[in-house]
């Protein structure tokens, strides 16, 4: 196993992209094939990472360090802990699936399309492995660009509006986050006389609560827009609806997780007093709960299939942020697992919309009905994805939801009670969607004789279905790998602050 494994994982898509540029754009088949090979290679090189990761060690592993801009104290510093390992795996797997699923659906400007996806892969992996804050920020912004083009060029009818909305929203958040980063950077210079963006160095800072709060809100805007948390979510339905299928898949499965990851990796450990400040925690929890209920209720009434799934993302991500701000082991570990689950379930749901969109070129729910009759296999896959998303036990969603809610309950019973309500609505909007699209008689002539899933579509769904069952039945490996890093974060937050609500300290409880 090479010592620079992480760099290999990080730059495999980029290297593939460089080769791709030399393939003439008329060689469409070659381009597709090459993009898939690179994506597969990107996944394959990430396998040694999970196999060789030692879950019993504290701190970061596979660390690589090199000076980049020494005068500014910027380093090429990358490494992973249990949380980032999972996110990297999510990225490489979903990247492969997204690229593979584009085989038939993208018919124009293939070269640019796949180039954007590969660039985005590198950007997303970079976000999850950067241990230098500026490096993180560069990757963070880098991701924005390909997604902007993916929506803006290969998107639906209102693609430009959606793309620009997406771009401005997230850019605005990013800029504010940068201000926060720079504040820490200069504070570090003041306190220690050295300029650095290294996260473990910045963690040594001793900031007064007031300043922590300001920086927290700056970070918050960056991360909350990305997640997206209520009320910063309105870019999401548009972006999702207009994006091509694979774009929606990556957006939901990985890109949004950059926001939640940011909270876990930066907000909590760097600003522990602010993160456990009662007011801030309450605001974040309440926004999360509003997101859960609001997303579910608005989903209920959507006329557009894809928009419905998009709003359901708002609801699901609300669970993730609620878990984080429960500030205990169950909440945060559950949140990370739920982020993966959301990637799987919502990824599947978007792929499902993609399948039918390719056949009928409309997303209006009322155009459909009775599809189970015409496309029985499709109906089964959809039912599976729906149940996984609705949190049926023995499928993935339940494990995350239960753990998050349990953590939230420990932190505050009222939050949990409201969040559990979201579970009810979650069942309602999905079942209703299913009923309106799949069940009943085939009422629309155009839907008669639609072909069922082809082998390529099966090949996209089967791995995700297996993954969903695996997490649902045996999630222990995920809990194991998250045990140490989450415990560290929880410990750090609680060690520096005594103001947290009535949650029993996880460490103390574990020793019982």
């Amino acid at each position: 196993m090479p010592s620079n494994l992480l760099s290999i994982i990080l730059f495999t898509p980029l290297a593939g992209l460089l080769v791709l540029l030399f393939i003439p754009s008329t060689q469409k088949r070659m381009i597709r094939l090459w993009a898939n090979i690179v994506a597969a290679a990107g996944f394959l090189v990430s396998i040694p990472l999970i196999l060789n990761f030692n879950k019993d060690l504290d701190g970061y592993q596979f660390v690589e360090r090199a000076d980049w801009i020494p005068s500014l104290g910027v380093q090429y510093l990358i490494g992973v802990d249990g949380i980032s390992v999972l996110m990297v795996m999510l990225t490489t797997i979903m990247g492969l699936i997204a690229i593979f699923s584009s085989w038939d659906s993208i018919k124009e400007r293939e070269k640019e399309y796949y180039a954007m996806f590969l660039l985005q892969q590198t950007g997303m992996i970079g976000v999850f492995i950067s241990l230098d804050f500026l490096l993180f920020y560069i990757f963070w912004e880098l991701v924005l660009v390909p997604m902007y083009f993916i929506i803006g060029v290969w998107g639906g009818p209102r693609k430009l509006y959606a793309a620009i909305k997406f771009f401005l929203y997230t850019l605005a958040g990013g800029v504010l986050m940068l201000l926060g980063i720079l504040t820490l950077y200069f504070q570090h210079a003041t306190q220690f006389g050295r300029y650095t963006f290294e996260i473990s160095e910045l963690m040594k800072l001793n900031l007064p609560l007031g300043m922590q709060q300001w920086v927290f809100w700056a970070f918050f805007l960056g991360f909350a827009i990305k997640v997206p948390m209520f009320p910063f979510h309105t870019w999401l339905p548009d972006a999702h609806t207009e994006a091509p299928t694979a774009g929606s898949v990556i957006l939901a499965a990985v890109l949004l997780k950059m926001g939640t990851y940011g909270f876990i990796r930066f907000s909590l450990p760097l600003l522990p007093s602010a993160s456990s400040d009662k007011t801030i925690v309450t605001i974040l929890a309440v926004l999360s709960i509003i997101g859960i209920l609001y997303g579910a209720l608005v989903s209920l009434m959507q006329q557009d299939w894809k928009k419905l799934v998009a709003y359901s993302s708002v609801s699901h991500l609300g669970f993730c942020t609620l878990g984080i701000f429960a500030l205990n082991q169950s909440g945060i570990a559950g949140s990370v697992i739920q982020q993966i689950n959301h990637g799987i379930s919502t990824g599947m749901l978007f792929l499902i919309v993609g399948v039918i969109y390719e056949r009928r070129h409309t997303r209006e729910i009322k155009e459909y009905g009775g599809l189970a009759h015409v496309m029985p296999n499709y109906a089964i896959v959809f039912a599976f994805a729906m149940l996984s998303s609705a949190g049926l036990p023995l499928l993935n969603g339940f494990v995350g939801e239960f753990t998050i809610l349990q953590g939230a309950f420990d932190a505050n019973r009222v939050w949990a009670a409201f969040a559990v309500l979201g579970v009810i609505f979650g069942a309602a909007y999905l079942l209703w969607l299913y009923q309106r699209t799949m069940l009943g008689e085939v009422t629309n002539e155009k839907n008669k004789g639609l072909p069922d899933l082809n082998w390529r579509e099966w090949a996209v769904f089967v791995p995700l279905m297996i993954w969903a069952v695996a997490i649902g039945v045996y999630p222990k490996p995920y809990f194991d790998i998250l045990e140490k890093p989450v415990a560290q974060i929880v410990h750090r937050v609680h060690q520096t602050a005594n103001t947290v609500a009535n949650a029993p300290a996880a460490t103390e409880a574990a020793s019982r």
Partner: protein
Amino acid sequence: MHQLWLIPALPLAGFLVNGIFGRKLPKAAVNAFAIGSVLLSFLWTVKILLALDPLNAPYVERYFTWIQSGYVNVGFDLGVDRLTAVMLLIVTGIGSLIHIYAIGYMSHEGGYYRFFAYMNLFMFFMLILVLAANYLLLFVGWEGVGLCSYLLIGFYFLKKSASDAGKKAFVVNRIGDFGFSLAMFLIMLNFGSLDFQNVFTKAAANGGGLAPNTITLICLLLLVGAIGKSAQVPLYVWLPDAMEGPTPVSALIHAATMVTAGVYMVARSAPLYNLSPTAMEVVAWVGLITAVMSATIGLTQYDIKKVFAYSTVSQLGYMFLGLGCGAYSAGIFHVMTHAFFKALLFLGAGSVIHALEGEQDLRMMGGLRSKIPVTFSVLLCAAVAIAGVPPFSGFHSKDAILLAAHAHHPWMYWVGVVTAGMTAFYVFRAIFLCFFGTYRGTAHPHESPLVMTLPLGVLALLSLGGGYLDVPHYLAPIFGGAHGEHDEALVVISVAAGVVGIAIAWLFYVVSPGLADGVARLFSWPYRVLYNKYYVDEAYDAVIVHPIRDGSTTVLWRVVDAGLIDGAVNGVGSLARSIGGGLRNMQSGYIRRYAAWVVLGSIVIIAAVSFWGGLR
């Protein structure tokens, strides 16, 4: 190790085989896998129970850790004690009979393999539910049976009413799960575990040091879950609609097994309920109200399956009454006898419907006694059992519950007795309308095949003699001995109520058929209220469903999302559009130019940072 896991795994295997390959398999193979797996599961259950006899202490097998996070540690553990043993035998035994019956009943239906795949999946989850050794695994089965119920109610998915009913069942059950989930979190927080043995041991030791209010809250939240699953007031509304499913489903899921899961769960949690008299009182009240309310609705319905559905709700109410009076074993006893006679009622009704080519309206039946004599005689067995006629099965279990109710509050006994009279009336009303008088329909009734009548015969024997399987005695080590004095007078009164009910039905529907309509006209206002089921569905629609639906559309989506938030955003957006005009030029489609933008952007950022850095 006794390989308990095989009990649920066998039907799961049947589900997988039929679910994946069923479409291509011949019917005989589908039958073999579907029925074979359930029968084997039954035999395996019997073998294990014989090996474990006398089963004085719970036997638990622990397989692997399922969820572990912080202090939360939930294992994939299965266990058997005497309570589980009774439930296992009911589920696999009755389940096998109903599966066999379904071969005949479903033989002309499309989606044959799909039906049996769902049924096997249901068996898997139901067996997980009763075998689970902790609350979370019980919840797995709990949700799973709910899913199968949804799938099977909506089995005829071309009918909108069927898929509506399925959805309603699922969502109403989720409301119950809301309570169950919160109860689990509370148990976790206070007992540090969800394992039955851990929780109950701690609870037995001085209530685990918990405040009585906490215990009461846990019990009430669990009860919310049980109310949803077992169709008690106010969450019973899904069960009558669930009759949209095929009749074997109504018999298996919505009469004999799944709907009794709530009763099982409360009985399972007896060590907690025993600590909270308040919660017990609530259980008894809920049961009694449900029993009375649905029995009154049952008096006026004309759909034969709906009559039996309301009867199920009512009988489940009886079971809760028993639980609430502390007579857990009587409640479980009634679960068993009810499984016998109610499964038989539904399957018999199915045989009638089968004979009449789909007719379910009692007004379109009549005089079938001679045309389908086997069906008539088995239904009669079920009817005398449910009416509490001694010495048949229903008499024994109902009697146990009523005696316990008398010991608890004598007035509850009296309400129960009146309900028993109504029960006898509406069941015999259905029997008389169906089998006596002259035939009012147009179909050509024919007796069902042996594959259907054979299970009916077995169930008839169980309905008649099942009362002598002394469940309360068997469960005494878990729940304690008899509750309430055995008072001959009370027994006689409750039997008399049943007989009076039968007699009135005989008078109304056989002796002078016009009389019933006259009575209905005389009490036209209350009759309408009953016939329309107290307008509960309408009330829920008006108070809950419509506000949520309309509020979500107009207020949340159109006003908040599109109006407020996006209004603000689009203010920025119009600015964006002018920028967008510029950005449009960037979309040249040339990757080189895109790459250049990316690099340029990064440079600008780095430059900005260095500039700021330089200022310091």
